[in-house]
């Protein structure tokens, strides 16, 4: 028998080797009714007896030093129970954001909105009043905003040791991916195109702002949080507060969106916990929408210089890139991915000669962090825009051009891409993918949009509205088994026939509480509803990863398969004598155990369970193994867009958007498709409207509410068709490679390429708002007028 490739530690009992009965079904989402009827209680909805209300004071300057902070007036205000500042908390006390320790109350403030004090009071009005009574004297320092200007200027004089913790890890240091000979690559090219692309600051805009309740009982800390991972939150809180992890419990029953912004517990959770420990009472904190904008991690804004060469026949010969990433006041390397832009540029298309450089620049803009496709989206926008430009110069069809340069392998693995010790990655190695059907995705998405119509659109009668069709493809380093390379699952089968699945992860909205028990049910041979899931609570569950980077299904999936198979095997051992069969002859399906050679010989699952010792339920444990160095695990997809531009108003209407994905296999297609819809919404917003704007003089964030920061509304959402193309991948549970996050990555380039098709203008700066479109059309007219003369 072939050895299982499933990514688990240890062995897995042999698979049931029969048709699937649960996986692949579009079952309804668990918890949906509670959510839409308002019964779901999110962290901010929980009220505990004696609960205090917390609020934080924010520094209004992007860069400053606290000369003096005096909270005595606030402390004296009746109803105020505690005020925390740098004066009354331990000097080295740190919070953690994305593995990065930040000083809880530093002397030097490195971004606008950073907290300088936290208050707990009897009610929110008193807490607010208390903030106004805190006197802070700042020495305002000259901030750094623009990444390239900062790069060109000498390193700033540090005002305190810890002003920019971790900066030496990456600040201003280029990381490089190279292969082949870039000079030769350009020499061999018949066409060389050079362009500059810029992408904007964007925000997550989760429907639920950060909220938490921290309750310290003198011994144990319980936190109801809004976070994507209960386990990373628990461990980080314990570490920060000097507690044993055993004494910290984190609970997330419902989460109102995350998109990376809640990848780890946010600073308010640490402040709430500390305030609870100081006052001995539960403390609630919740961010306002304004705080959410100004005080939270944002998407990196990136400037990308891209130069590419190709032969007449369309063969790519060279890709050269310099990506300057404004990392804001990111506090460390783990908050910043040293090669995330160039990794994507290097691997999406086959090209023998590449020289790619990425520089992260520390500035005094807000901290950055994971934001649905961090850096992928920016990298894909530039690369896929450039591919169309090159195709145009070559006189080639953009789809054919991509097919011509189809990549069957890549060269820099996931671990190497994160290795800080090596600044230049120069590999000639060809690492195959565990599975890849991007070609089918491109075909499907373009067929569905009616790619062949493109030429015909040019012959439409002359009106102010122009139509165009465009496409883009993408890849994502996914299901990679990220740090700490641990994902564990436990399945318990009891005498009464009940089955529990324990998973230490959070249902971020992707439907984890629905799909994870589906995997267990399939492997056990019972119905999906037969498996209860214990999720979003560190009590009783083994370690589970935070739900970001689309890692939950690809990391938890194999562990759940293993746990369920181990538990099932134990049940088969009990059932075999009852059925007069050998263990290895047994199979199970739809709640029945049967003999493979004689399927009519069955024993109901529940009857078999009667043989379980009531004191000793059957327990199956599963544990995910890290990914091997080879092959490479990745997901892929392509999108195509047909749109109409009103050349007089600059309004863009997307008539239709098609998206085809290679996620391996969908455990629950309906929920998987929902993720793609969400990604498209992100992509449309990023392409056409969302933009964080700063005042150029003070560096203050101006767009700090949901009317000035424009996210698409239902009326802006295009008609979309989503296709899940399926491919086998034995490394994952039922071939589920991971899905949720990255489907926004190709949308902006597909829209931008369609815009070119419509009006013959390339847009290289996101977002493409009506003002930019009208200005470009105007300039185009001026140019053409001059040309005629």
């Amino acid at each position, binding site marked *: 028998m072939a050895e299982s490739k499933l990514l688990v530690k240890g062995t897995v009992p042999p698979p049931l080797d029969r048709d699937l009965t649960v996986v692949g079904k579009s079952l309804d989402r668990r918890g949906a009714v509670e959510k839409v009827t308002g019964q779901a209680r999110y962290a901010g909805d929980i009220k505990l007896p004696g609960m205090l209300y917390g609020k934080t004071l*924010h520094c209004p300057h992007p860069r400053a030093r606290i000369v003096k902070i005096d909270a005595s007036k606030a402390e004296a205000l009746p109803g105020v129970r505690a005020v925390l500042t740098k004066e009354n908390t331990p000097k080295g006390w740190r919070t953690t954001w994305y593995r990065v320790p930040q000083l809880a109350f530093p002397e030097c403030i490195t971004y606008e909105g950073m907290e300088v004090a936290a208050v707990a009071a009897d009610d929110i*009005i008193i807490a607010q009043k208390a903030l106004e009574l805190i006197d802070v004297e700042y020495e305002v320092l000259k901030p750094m905003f623009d990444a390239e200007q900062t790069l060109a200027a000498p390193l700033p004089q540090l005002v305190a040791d810890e002003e920019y913790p971790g900066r030496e890890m990456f600040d201003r240091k280029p990381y490089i991916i190279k292969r082949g000979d870039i000079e030769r690559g350009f020499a061999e090219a018949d066409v060389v195109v050079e362009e500059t692309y810029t992408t904007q600051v964007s925000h997550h805009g989760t429907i639920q702002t950060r909220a938490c309740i921290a309750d310290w009982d003198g011994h144990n800390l319980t936190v109801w949080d809004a976070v994507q991972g209960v386990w990373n939150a628990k461990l980080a809180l314990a570490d920060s507060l000097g507690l044993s992890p055993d004494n910290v419990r984190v609970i997330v029953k419902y989460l109102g969106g995350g998109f990376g912004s809640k990848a780890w517990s946010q600073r308010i959770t640490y402040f709430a916990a500390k305030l609870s420990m100081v006052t001995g009472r539960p403390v609630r904190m919740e961010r306002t929408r304004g705080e959410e904008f100004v005080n939270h991690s944002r998407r990196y804004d990136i400037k990308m210089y891209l130069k590419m060469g190709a032969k007449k026949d369309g063969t790519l010969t060279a890709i050269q890139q310099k990506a300057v990433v404004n990392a804001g006041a990111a506090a460390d390397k783990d908050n910043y991915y040293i090669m995330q832009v160039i990794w994507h540029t290097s691997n999406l298309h086959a090209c023998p000669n590449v020289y790619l450089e990425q520089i992260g620049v520390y500035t005094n803009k807000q901290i950055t962090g994971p934001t649905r496709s961090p850096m992928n989206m920016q990298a894909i926008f530039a690369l896929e825009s450039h591919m169309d430009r090159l195709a145009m110069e070559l006189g080639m069809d953009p789809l054919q051009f991509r097919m011509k340069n189809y990549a069957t392998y890549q060269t820099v693995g996931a671990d190497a891409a994160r290795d800080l010790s090596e600044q230049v990655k120069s590999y000639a190695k060809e690492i195959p993918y565990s599975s890849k059907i991007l070609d089918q995705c491109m075909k499907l998405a373009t067929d569905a949009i009616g790619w062949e119509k493109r030429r015909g659109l040019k012959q439409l009668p002359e009106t102010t509205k122009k139509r165009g069709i465009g496409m883009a493809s993408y890849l994502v380093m996914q299901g990679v088994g990220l740090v700490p390379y641990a994902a564990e699952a436990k399945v318990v089968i009891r005498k009464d026939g009940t089955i529990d699945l324990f998973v230490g992860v959070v249902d971020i909205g992707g439907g984890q509480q629905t799909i994870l028990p589906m995997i267990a049910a399939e492997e056990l041979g019972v119905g999906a509803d037969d498996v209860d899931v214990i999720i979003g609570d560190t009590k009783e569950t083994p370690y589970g990863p935070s739900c970001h980077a689309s890692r939950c299904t690809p990391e938890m999936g194999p562990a759940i398969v293993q746990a369920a198979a181990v538990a099932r095997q134990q049940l088969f051992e009990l059932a075999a004598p009852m059925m007069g069969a050998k263990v290895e002859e047994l199979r199970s399906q739809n709640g029945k155990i049967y003999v493979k050679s004689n399927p009519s010989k069955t024993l109901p699952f529940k009857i078999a369970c009667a043989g379980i010792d009531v004191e000793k339920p059957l327990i199956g444990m599963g544990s995910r193994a890290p990914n091997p160095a080879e092959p490479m695990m990745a997901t892929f997809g392509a999108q195509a867009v047909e749109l109409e531009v009103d050349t*007089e108003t600059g309004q863009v209407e997307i008539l239709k958007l098609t998206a085809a994905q290679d996620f391996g296999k969908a455990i629950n297609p309906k929920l998987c498709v929902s993720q793609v819809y969400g990604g498209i919404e992100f992509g449309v917003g990023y392409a056409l409207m969302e933009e964080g704007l700063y005042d150029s003089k003070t560096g*203050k964030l101006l767009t*700090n*509410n949901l009317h000035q920061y*424009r996210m698409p509304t239902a009326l802006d959402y295009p008609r979309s068709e989503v296709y899940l193309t399926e491919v086998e991948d034995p490394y994952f549970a039922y071939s589920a490679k991971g899905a949720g996050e990255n489907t926004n990555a190709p949308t902006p380039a597909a829209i931008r390429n369609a815009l070119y098709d419509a009006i013959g203008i390339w847009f290289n700066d996101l977002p493409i708002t009506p*003002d930019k479109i*009208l200005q470009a059309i105007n300039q185009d007219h001026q140019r053409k007028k001059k040309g005629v003369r």
Partner: protein
Amino acid sequence: MLFELPAFEHIDAKDVKEAVTCLKAYDGKASVIAGATDLLALMKDRIEGPKLKVPAALVNIKNIFGIGRITREKEAGLRMGAAVTLSRIAASGEITPKFGILSQAARMVGTTQIRNMGTLGGNLCQRPRCVYFRHPHFVCFKKGGTRCYAAAGEHRFYHSILKKGKCVMAHPSDMAPALVALKAGAVIAGVEGERTVPLRDFFLGPDDIGETILKSDEFILAVEVPDQPAGTRQIFLKQRVRQAADFALASVATVARITDGICKDISIVLGGVAPLPYVAKTAGEVIEGHALTKRLISDVAEAALEGARPLPMNQYKVDLTRAMVKRALTSMIESNT
């Protein structure tokens, strides 16, 4: 922005007298509240300065008799109480079809939720949407500061190309251009009694701190729209970045009587491009008494934008508004109402 709603007193006025007495007693420290969709956001964000205070008291006018009503009188035209919601205006049978432009404009405001809460009076009295005005750290001219930050700062979307002054914001109301085009009047309640002013005289210019002529102890009680003669055509167009929850990059309200192809009593009023609903007077004169030909429409559109002096980053609004004027006039010829 970073704050909770501050504490305030709330007074339910049962009639006009109580409301104005109360406003007078608070001497500028009270504000009228109806739909509150703009007011509470300003309070939460602590939008204040030497000449703009967060109100200590809110006087609710929604209980005043008749203030939530739309009445239609044959001779006098239409009277809409200030507290009539925008949803009502968008859907009301009294309004369509004779005052159809009001429904057209109301449907373009905000979102369903905003229209359900937001009122006609509030829409006319809303404050600028300029990012600097809305940011508590910038004490701009409109708050009693000395400068306008937007003129040399961020002004791509919600700022003026016409009639700029000490402040360069563009008036955000959608109802105002439509009502000015209909030659509506505002009924203002004050301690001295009621007075009616043409709505086009209701709005102040860019060098004033406030946007309206209302004194601190006055409020809009109703809006009166004269009866529209038969053959009146009305078009409202609005352009925005996204299709809901957004203010106008530019809007155009046109009302005219067209008989036998000849255009009479035309009003062309622009929104989102000037500190007040901008009456394109010259444009109206160009067209008055003429047939709307393609050529003439082009001339009118030129005339409407005459004197436009855009800011460095909003030049596109000139082309945009011109195109919208053309479209509005063209669809007036095509519409048969």
